[in-house]
């Protein structure tokens, strides 16, 4: 799980998450919308997704569904200002409520990897 796709419509948050993961040794792609994330992933598939939920246009829920149509096993970390209760039950998915500590990103990605 070396390549992570970070998606958030707030560029400040996308950049924070990206720089944290970059510092932890991941290769990071950034997209500021669900649509851009899909295009990005088509060109350069990621091993894991870190995404916001509420975004204009395609939201995080729809993005996750679209990506998993291609790769059902894609691990996903959803980080949102809403709790995203309905996603908790999905396999290979973790849902965190903002604000999170940046180190948690790495911890959860590693945990997802361990889960297989």
């Amino acid at each position: 799980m070396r390549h992570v796709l970070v998606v958030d419509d707030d560029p400040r948050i996308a950049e924070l998450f990206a720089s944290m993961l970059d510092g932890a040794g991941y290769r990071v792609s950034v997209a500021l919308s669900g649509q851009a994330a899909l295009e990005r992933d088509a060109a350069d598939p990621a091993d894991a997704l870190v995404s916001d939920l509420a975004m204009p246009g395609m939201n995080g829920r729809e993005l996750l569904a679209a990506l998993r149509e291609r790769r059902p096993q894609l691990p996903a970390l959803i980080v949102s200002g809403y709790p995203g209760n309905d996603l908790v039950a999905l396999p290979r998915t973790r849902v965190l409520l903002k604000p999170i500590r940046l180190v948690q990103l790495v911890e959860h990605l590693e945990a997802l990897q361990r889960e297989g």
Partner: protein
Amino acid sequence: MTLGSKDTRPPPPEQRDESDPGDAFGLPAQGQLDGDSFSPLGNPGVRHWQAGYVTQAGLEDRSSVFFAAVEMTRMPMVITDPNQPDNPIAFANKAFLDLTGYEEEQVVGRNCRMLQGEETDPETVAEVRRAVQEQRAVAVDILNYKADGTKFWNALFIGPVFDEDGRLLYFFASQVDITRRRLSEQSFRQAQKMEAVGQLTAGLAHDFNNLLQVVTGNLEVAELHCRDNPALATAIGNAQRAAESGARLTQQLLTFARKQRLDPRRLNLNGLVVDFSEMAVRALGDRIDLRLDLRPGLPSCTLDAAHMEMALLNVLLNARDAMPDGGVITVGTSVLDERRRSERHHLQPGQYVTLCVIDEGDGMSPDVVNRAADPFFTTKPLGTGLGLAMVHGFVQQSHGRLEIDSELGRGTTVRLIFPVAAERSVNPMPGNLTLNEGDDATPRILLVEDSDDVRQLAESHLRSLGYRVFSAASGEQALRLLDEQGAMDLLFTDVMMPGGINGLVLAERMRERLPDLPVLLATGYTDELASQGLNTAAFSVIGKPYRRAEVAERIRALLDERDTASRVRADTFRHEG
């Protein structure tokens, strides 16, 4: 609803229809009177008189069928005599005695203000008084009291009776008890208010969480770069703690907005209360005497235990704060009475249990009670105003109700009402389908609303108007219902709903299948529609909170419009063919 001032009292009407010269005659109301008050006619009164002119004064003639009618009608009526000091009641019919519980000799000779009491609105009384002074008709909804002290909402109509020359002889007044309607309307509006505030709060919490993420994330980055600068590290630490407090606050807001992540499990409230009471005693301090009054054999509920304890603690702390000098707090459990369930709470059928916390403190005024669960409303110097708001959110999210009974000087009872757990694991979501008896001609309305309480109230209202109601809690559920149940006559949907299908998307998808389907959209934020670039032009929109009469009217208008349109089309078709 006023009819001109003192100087413009209506003159006796010139035309007496086709009646005989000796008959009494009157001035038709022309729909001017009802205003915001209740009309027992179901629509504005047009032809009934708002002022009467009689050719024969006096109350002695009780020989005709008209007197029998007055004593037989179930509409309470009185006649007062303004030519006597203090305008006393000169006559009260039997229905009036039935309504108020007074005996005839207790009312005749007294002024009607005997029906007023502590909570009667002085403004309304003043409005009535002005009309009486100006010798004109008035219609108001006023809080009155029966002989035994029971309060009731009275839809009061008063009109003057003159002699042929326009000299004032009497006032006529009729009354209707509209208490049930009033309470139901009140709880409907309250539910809508909480729903709107909840949506607003959730949006606010979401935006703040994003801002806090930017703040805390950057603080973390800064922290990494200040290892050798203790002053900077301290400053960053302080900022981080403040951001953490902010995050706790937004968590509480999300609880109020019913967006909390709950882990409901089967539990017995008696057990929870007993387990929690040790901790509660410590939290309440030694000036509070905590008593338990638990109903043996209480059925179990499906609740998140941790949040339930937090809710109970919140209510207990409020009770403690209401008694600064100490006192008794009782925590009780019981099974909710079936009649109370449907009449007061509009809860889905089923068994419910109540957890109540009773204090002997100062109590609250009705105004404070109404706002007690609003977020940021507090009467405490250091309160956050989120305690009861969170309790409300939790109870709602658990498909229950929060109810507060309080009176100044008499203490407060807070009730948390929860559905009893199903015997087997059945999805506790509200029934997708609610059928109403009715023939095939009864219009079928698809009602979509994600808030349980607003949906239930709207449902019972629409059903009382004679529609067949199919209700769904989401756009997805609504589309499934359409598949199962076939064509609908009208879609009444909330605009903002969680999930992929909001009200507008739903309306569009349904129109693909039923092109002429009348659609009524409900929204709390018309600005929101515009800012999201949503096009509502094709649909009829009603603002939240809406009045029930308004909904009834809009739906009737939409259905009429569709009927007319389809008739026109049918005619055109015939002509062409």
